[in-house]
């Protein structure tokens, strides 16, 4: 296998009147790792979807090893040796590693001789720098192992140009380094060329050879990584003006501050009936942000659902402001417990109802929203919604529009408006800015900090360690349904946190997930 080089000339793509990509020319040299940086909506996905043939480009030319090719479907791309690893795993969890590899290969005979196929796969695995057990079911693999399976799949298909879409978004820092290191080694051995979409500067600086930055569908910069630094990349990515955010000053948490949320030995079962949250205890003081770090799937979802009344808990005790709490609607209203769950359209809104109706879900039956008797006062609901829309910059500012038609950032703003319309004593937030654009992120993070200043106890569960280190006062690490580590955010060390996230610090495993590392020989 030899690596492919790829160039585009004047690549462009429109969706109706919207120019998603305009005149982008990039050069990816063979045997290099090339990072593609940009905010959400900068056109990164549009570009790579054009290269892989998912949604072909309108304009421009694609050259592979200097020869022009038309790519109009993923089949074309596959035939040319271009493969892509998607942000979300595209492996079937109910099937084994061997079955996944075989299905990826295609051209299967009608009857499969497993003896023969296993021998072929074993031989293939022996040539790889890392291995997975062929017979294990994918659902039992860790996120890092699944990502490795994705890579194995691409190598098994003999793809020589690989597009990685945020390959580390679900991995621990250690797993990320291992996977990216493998990718870089393969590239430098001239077996692969890699185009990697990312938003993490650290990954660009440590693992990429060159970097291209897109903003609003246009190319703003291209350079060798050794000639640049994170500040320059940030300027390219976001433009000069938006970088200068005011430094965040915050008052320290008062030692005497009352405890807003207290969880004692909480146990919650997962969908599969296993223990997802295992005797977990934590405390959040009023005016404090406690961040919970961890790889998704370690019980965070179940913890949040139990706190929000979406899931029963098996045992343990939750109290809010010293009062026992079982997450009923009445308790939430009385104790002023509010929430910003992840996927707000799924967990906090009804997509088909209007913005105004969604904003009134907490209090549509309170006296001020009611006409005498049991009828709802739609005018009052509408007026209140208009005020909230203005105060929280929800756009477009139409209270009667179904909330499902708003962009992700504006849905989350609308939810935030509902949840922080009045003073909250406890705010429970789970990945509140996941997938949102830059301005919505800074907006929502500022609101959370403002709530803290006013004395709200904030429990912030996030998969983004940078977000936690920036916002939280205390960072807890959750692994296997327990809090395994607690540290003051200002003195926190990323590597230590990462080790606890991977579960290595408490129960060291011999090698990461049974992986065997080979030397280049």
């Amino acid at each position, binding site marked *: 296998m030899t690596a492919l080089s790829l160039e585009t000339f004047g690549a462009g793509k429109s969706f109706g009147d919207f120019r998603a990509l305009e005149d982008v020319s990039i050069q990816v040299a063979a045997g290099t790792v090339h990072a593609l940086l940009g905010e959400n909506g900068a056109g990164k996905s549009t570009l790579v979807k054009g290269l892989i043939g998912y949604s072909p480009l309108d304009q421009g030319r694609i050259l592979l090893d200097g020869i022009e090719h038309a790519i109009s479907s993923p089949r074309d791309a596959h035939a040319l040796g271009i493969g892509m690893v998607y942000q979300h795993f*595209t492996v079937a969890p*109910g*099937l084994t590693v061997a079955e996944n590899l075989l299905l990826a290969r295609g051209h*299967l005979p009608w*009857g499969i001789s497993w003896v023969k196929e296993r021998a072929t796969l074993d031989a293939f695995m022996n040539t790889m720098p890392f291995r997975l057990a062929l017979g294990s079911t994918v659902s039992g693999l860790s996120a890092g192992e699944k990502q490795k399976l994705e890579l194995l799949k691409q190598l098994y298909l003999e793809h020589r140009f690989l597009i990685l879409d945020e390959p580390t978004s679900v991995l621990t820092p250690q797993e990320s380094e291992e996977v990216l290191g493998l990718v870089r080694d393969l590239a430098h051995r001239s077996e692969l060329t890699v185009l990697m979409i990312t938003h993490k500067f650290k990954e660009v600086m440590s693992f990429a050879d060159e970097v291209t930055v897109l903003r609003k569908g246009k190319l703003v910069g291209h350079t060798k990584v050794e000639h640049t630094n994170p500040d320059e990349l940030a300027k390219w990515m976001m433009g000069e003006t938006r970088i200068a955010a005011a430094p965040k000053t915050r008052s320290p948490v008062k030692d005497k501050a009352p405890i807003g949320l207290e969880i004692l030995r909480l146990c919650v*079962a997962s969908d599969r009936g296993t223990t997802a949250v295992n005797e977990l205890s934590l405390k959040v003081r009023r005016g404090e942000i406690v961040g919970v770090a961890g790889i998704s799937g370690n019980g965070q979802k179940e913890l949040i659902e139990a706190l929000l009344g979406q899931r029963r808990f098996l045992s343990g005790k939750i109290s809010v402001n010293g009062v026992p709490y079982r997450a009923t609607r009445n308790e939430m209203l009385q104790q002023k417990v509010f929430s910003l769950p992840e996927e707000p359209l799924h967990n906090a809104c009804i997509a088909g109802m209007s913005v105004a109706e969604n904003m009134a879900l907490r209090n549509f039956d309170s006296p001020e929203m009611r006409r005498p008797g049991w009828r709802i006062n739609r005018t009052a609901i509408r007026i209140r919604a208009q005020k909230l829309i203005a105060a929280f910059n929800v756009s477009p500012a139409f209270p009667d529009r179904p909330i499902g038609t708003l962009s992700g950032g504006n849905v989350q703003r609308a939810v935030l408006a509902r949840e922080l319309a009045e003073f909250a004593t406890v705010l429970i937030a789970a990945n509140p800015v996941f997938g949102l654009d830059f301005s919505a992120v800074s907006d929502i993070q500022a609101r959370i900090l403002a709530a803290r200043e006013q004395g709200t106890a904030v429990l912030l569960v996030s998969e983004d360690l940078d977000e936690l280190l920036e916002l939280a006062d205390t960072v807890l690490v959750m692994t296997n349904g327990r809090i395994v580590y607690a540290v003051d955010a200002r003195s926190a060390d990323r590597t230590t946190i990462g080790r606890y996230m991977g579960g290595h610090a408490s129960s060291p495993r011999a090698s990461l997930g049974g992986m065997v590392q080979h030397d280049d020989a």
Partner: protein
Amino acid sequence: MLNEVVPSAFDFGSLALALFAGAIRIGTPFLFVSLGECLTEKAGRVNLGLEGILVCGAMTGYAVSLQTGSPWIGVLGAGISGLVLGAFHGLVCSLRGVNDIAFGIALMVFGTGLAFYLGTPYIQPQAPTLPAFALGDWSTNSQLRNALEINVLFLVGVVLAGLLHWGMASTRWGLVLRLVGDHAETARALGYRLIPVRVTATAAGGFLAAVGGAYLSLYYPGSWNEGLSSGQGLMAVALVIFARWRPWRCLFAALLFGAAGALGPALQSLGITSGYYLFNAAPYVLTLVIMVITCRPDRTISGAPGELSLTR
């Protein structure tokens, strides 16, 4: 004292024999319907219409057998009717916004109604029925001989269960079927087309369910009437869950349901008549118990195909 003990010991042996015979005799349609449902669900769809397909197959099988004089052509005819209805379910559910469960219920009512409408002329005449192997001829015990009279279709079903079990793991067709049912996104990314796989699986599932129906009208009870089915098509859904979507286990689950169905008649034949209707309800109670134990809102079932709307 002695007078009471001896008959009860005798009763137990007869009961076991009667349950064994019933497990096979009543379990065979369960076996075919559940294999059909298993196949459909492995592709990620639920077909509740199998009940209607079963009744339709019973009628078609009986009618074709009567017309041609061959019960085996009757079984084939039933299968084809099921294939058509199954493909209908598969195609309609491939349209945007069609819910497979809702359409399955519609198909259940449609299939049953169609069978009743077209089947009126076949209620009286006697069609040729399916043969059985008399494996108990060596015995002088009439009960044992009766119990060992194994119908051919049951043996076909056993072979089929084994075949499906092997096919799911070791054929291209089986792997693609499981991929499509497990993770549609992956299947799409790998370039496999979902709809043809699902339609084929649903159609094949319909074929099997209709063969199960033909068994009802052509072997046991062995005539066509409107009260022929007792919900086997619906109970098959519970049965497949119980079998954790494994064809081989469907066989044992079908035998269990068959034995439960035989409990009432078996007790009656031994002279226990009180609570006859209660014992007849055993398969339904079994269904309920299985559903209560396995389907709870806050947990998913292990082994379930990932794309199944039933368990998500």
